[in-house]
């Protein structure tokens, strides 16, 4: 395949004594969108959270194996450094309730104590909100608290917040599952746009969404990566029987 950005080698993850992710080897191509699919409880969230070392925040949880970004093994870095390179958007929008919209976007700078000139921050805010497709809706209310925004707007605010620190990869865990269909459509279009700037790895439960949005699909089953390939190919001609059953709605 073309230019790879992130590769896992023999990645295992566990909660307590139980291995939830088993020996996953996969390479994500740069500036692409990968959908991670699989039945509930198969380990999609766990896998995603391994990639930016959020998984180990859960008590008694951990992972082993290699996660290689360019030439660097992320498991050898400090988790904080990893998370600064790989952004994350959660299932439920979680803007900071005490901050204004403006401050939410530059939270990655403010919270990390990075000082910049006002004009630089203004540009980052505008640029990030534009990329997240939220600029027009909030440009007159930048200094209000984000709590009056709708769920979909809050989620786009969270995407803007992740984009603002200029990550190479953004992980999204079912970013539209808490949203209505219209908000979902807007976010899907936005994700496709994002491809130009970053690499997106997103968990989705929704086959149609994966089909509409993703370039690649990874299919997990009981902690194993059963299948990885171009979405078209996986959808039309799955190699694995279980994948086929899943795609035709017989499991899941």
């Amino acid at each position, binding site marked *: 395949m073309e230019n790879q950005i992130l590769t896992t080698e023999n990645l295992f993850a566990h909660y307590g004594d139980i291995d939830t992710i088993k020996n996953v080897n996969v390479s994500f191509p740069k500036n692409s969108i990968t959908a991670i699919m699989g039945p509930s409880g198969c380990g999609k969230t766990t896998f995603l959270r391994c990639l*930016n070392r*959020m998984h180990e*925040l859960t008590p008694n949880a951990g992972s082993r194996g290699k996660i290689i970004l360019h030439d660097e093994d992320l498991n050898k870095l400090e988790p*904080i*450094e*990893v*998370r*600064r*390179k790989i*952004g*994350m958007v*959660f299932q*439920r929008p*979680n*803007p*900071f*309730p*005490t901050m204004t919209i403006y401050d939410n976007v530059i*939270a*990655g700078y*403010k*919270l*990390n*104590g990075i000082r910049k000139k006002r004009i630089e921050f203004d540009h980052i805010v505008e640029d990030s909100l534009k990329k997240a497709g939220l600029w027009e809706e909030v440009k007159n209310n930048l200094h209000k608290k984000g*709590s009056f925004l709708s769920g979909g707007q809050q989620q786009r605010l*969270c995407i803007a*917040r*992740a984009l603002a*620190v200029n990550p190479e990869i953004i992980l999204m865990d079912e970013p539209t599952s808490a949203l209505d269909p219209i908000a979902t459509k807007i976010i899907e279009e936005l994700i496709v746009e994002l491809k130009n700037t970053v690499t997106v790895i997103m968990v989705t439960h929704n086959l149609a969404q994966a089909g509409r949005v993703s370039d690649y699909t990874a299919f997990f089953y009981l902690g194993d990566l059963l299948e990885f390939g171009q979405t078209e190919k996986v959808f039309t001609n799955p190699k694995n029987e279980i994948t086929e059953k899943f795609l035709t709605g017989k499991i899941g």
Partner: protein
Amino acid sequence: MTETNLKIRSIKNIIFRTIIIGVALLAILPLFFIIFYVIKEGLSAINWEFISSVAKPIGESGGGILSALVGSSILIVIAVIIAIPIGISAGLYISEHSDSKLSSMIRLSVEVLQGTPSIVIGIIGYFWFVKPMGHFSALSGGIALALMMLPMIVKTAEETLRMIPFSLKEASLALGVPYYKTILKVILPAGLSGIMTGVIIGIARIAGETAPLLFTAFGNAFFSTNILKPIDSLPLLIFNYATSPYTDWHKMAWGASTVLIFFILILNITTRIIVNKWKIKY
């Protein structure tokens, strides 16, 4: 038969309700009456001179409670400065490590400290600070009061912080923000109104404490702002004047009581405003 039975039951019901309301009112009315009585006696004593001047020697009329007002403020400030950082940090510790052994020991200690009689806190203040320093002081009084308000702050801090959803912490950590900055800049601000409420309730509680000050701040007939010297406070003044034989002093004590009650009332109202206005939606 059943009809009379029903009647008896409903009469019993009415009698019971009447008794409950009657007894409850019987208890509540005297409670109101105390406040009414104090304020009635006290309001006539309060004027500008009363608030703004120091006490006059026995026999001379006039004078005010300025020394006690300033003293109480100094004591409260000392207590707050000491109790807030320790209380919030400890509250953070137990909310962050809620299952650890150390946490349960801290919780137990907080309960014990909260149940410690105030006079015992006074003895402790005497032995830890007054005796080593060789004299009574505002500082020792302030520290004794800090011990009294510490449990309140730890508990409200813990409760508030525990209510903050984990997703908020995740949002910050996922941006590569170090844990301690996440706590200081995201979690604490989100819990600010709850913690403030705890602090204000704590202040309301120590503002009227007398027993811990008897052997620490001790009281001072003269105006003083030196934290290493004995200092007067409103409750000490009320105690000394109330138990004195002078009618003038009694009047001043009523005035001081009224001031103290209003101060506590204002603190109570403030916490309500904070709770209602500063609600954070997640």
